[in-house]
């Protein structure tokens, strides 16, 4: 089946739930169309056998151990093109939530008092370890975006992860803003590309694709923690929540932990 002219693709995973690979598998029949353009030579989750050489590497997961650092560097050297899949690989995701504790303490917590040896290191995204060519963000990735990036790879076009907030996709789909229901949403500061899947279901955006460039985190602090009469819709939100600075910080910290998130009055992230 393999014809040598097609680029060779390989899939690799690091610390994660493997939900992104699973999402790629959801292409089902479309996966066969995709195979018109590439040969998949390594994919541990679905096939036996692996290849020492490949052109495009799709990698998911976070780097959490010394040996992972070596492994991803090797992959980087081998692959002409490195594509990260998912927020674990792109921004650290909740894997990095644990970074607020030292590794030794974590091991202690899970394994009781026994002394254990481990090469665990603070969790970080792949993007923090090696240069990557393409990124698909999301927890999990969105399939249409994966396909789009895939086409960019095949045609040699650059792909810029969308740098617009989720609100844009939310509005373009004519979804109801969850603020109207009194929920606080991280959509205004979170990268879109998910087609606003959470708000399409009336849920708030939890920020899984990370912050947009130049996100105004301070705005949220200002709106909700300043004493000021709010307008009717926002009053309903504030009535229900009136979050403290700590609560706001925690909400952001579900996904945005690499590098350390600074949230205090008077800061604009990335500005």
């Amino acid at each position: 089946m393999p014809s040598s002219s097609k680029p060779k693709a390989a899939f690799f995973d690091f610390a994660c739930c493997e939900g992104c690979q699973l999402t790629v598998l959801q292409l089902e029949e479309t996966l066969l169309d995709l195979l018109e353009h590439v040969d998949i030579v390594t994919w541990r989750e679905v096939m036996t056998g692996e290849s020492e050489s490949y052109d495009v590497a799709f990698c998911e997961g976070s780097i959490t151990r010394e040996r992972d650092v070596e492994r991803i560097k090797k992959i980087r050297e081998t692959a002409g093109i490195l594509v990260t899949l998912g927020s674990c690989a792109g921004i650290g995701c909740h894997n990095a939530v644990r970074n607020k504790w030292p590794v030794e303490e974590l091991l202690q917590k899970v394994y009781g008092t026994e002394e254990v040896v481990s090469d665990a290191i603070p969790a970080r995204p792949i993007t923090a370890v090696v240069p990557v060519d393409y990124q698909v963000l999301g927890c999990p990735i969105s399939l249409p975006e994966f396909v789009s990036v895939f086409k960019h790879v095949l045609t040699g076009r650059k792909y810029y992860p969308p740098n617009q907030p989720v609100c844009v996709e939310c509005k373009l789909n004519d979804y109801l803003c969850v603020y109207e229901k009194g929920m606080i949403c991280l959509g205004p500061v979170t990268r879109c590309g998910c087609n606003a899947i959470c708000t399409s279901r009336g849920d708030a955006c939890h920020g899984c694709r990370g912050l947009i460039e130049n996100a105004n985190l301070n705005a949220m602090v200002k709106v909700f923690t300043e004493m000021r009469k709010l307008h009717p819709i926002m009053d309903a939100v504030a009535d229900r929540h009136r979050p403290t600075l700590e609560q706001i910080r925690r909400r952001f910290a579900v996904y945005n932990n690499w590098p350390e998130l600074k949230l205090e009055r008077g800061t604009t992230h990335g500005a």
Partner: protein
Amino acid sequence: MAPLKQVVSSEGLFDMLREAMKELPVIAPAERKDQPGFHHFARLQQAEDFVPDYVTTTLPPKKAFFQPSETLFTFTTDQPPALELVSDTEHFVLAGVHPCDLAGLDALDLAYSQPPAEVRWPADRGLATVVGIDCMPDDYCFCSSVGTCLTRQGCDLFLTKVDRGYLAEVYTPAGDTMLAKVRTWEPTEADIRDAEQWRERKVERMTAHLEADPAEIADLLEAGGLAHLWKETAERCYSCGSCNTTCPACFCFDMHDEFDLSLKTGIRRRTWDSCQLLEFALVAGRHNFRQEREQRVRHRWHRKFLYLYRRLGRAYCTGCGRCSRACTADINLVDVTNALIAHARKAADHA
């Protein structure tokens, strides 16, 4: 010339839509299935779904003509490529449009017809029979401040609630045809008075007001000296673009290509865009001409109340209040505008 007026019963209004639906799709405000209690413009499945007394919708009815994301043409990668325009040809009825949204359609008619005119918008507009309806304001509406309270432009038929049904004003033959399908009555003086009172009540109930008329606001913006205001507003603003993407008078867009998975065919798409987004004015070399949030905020106000006012003779705000409702940072267009009016006047007094 005063429009022809007829009275139609409340049931008659639904009959009229029912009749129209036999031939054409009808797009009108209906309750959201995903969130009861809220409304949106949607293609009616049955005439009963129409909600005549809705307050507002998230997206304005302009989406019936220019979808948030629409295909302009398809292409192939043959040599030479084959290009095929994709455009709507189906006639439809757009019903339940409030005066502010009629004004929005009118504003876009004007903008898109400036030379070099675009063909898509007027072509799509030509497909619709538009039925307007009068409304009651909520806390965010301020159409009386921008003179769109009584807008009838661009509608074929306009309805006002009266005691025994609706007073229908007929503006075009298309409107007449729609109305002719149902039983109507000559309006009595009482009907005319009812409609008059509705309009008066509407203005009385309006709680939000701009403290100056659009002409004065344009002058004040032009005079400048408002840097601190843009800065203050920007400190709260997320640059999420919701104010633009919900505005009936905004018309910016983006265009991009998409390949099919075959990589042999594809489409060019255009999508609503927003000047509040960071990369709106980004050019090659990562040069951004409105990098600062306050620049973008300022641009929004200038574009709504100054630039287009000077260029096209009208403010690009219809008083619908959608941007303030939608703002995720609780920035209210009326409050900010009034603050700038107050500031500019004070500055003028001191001078």
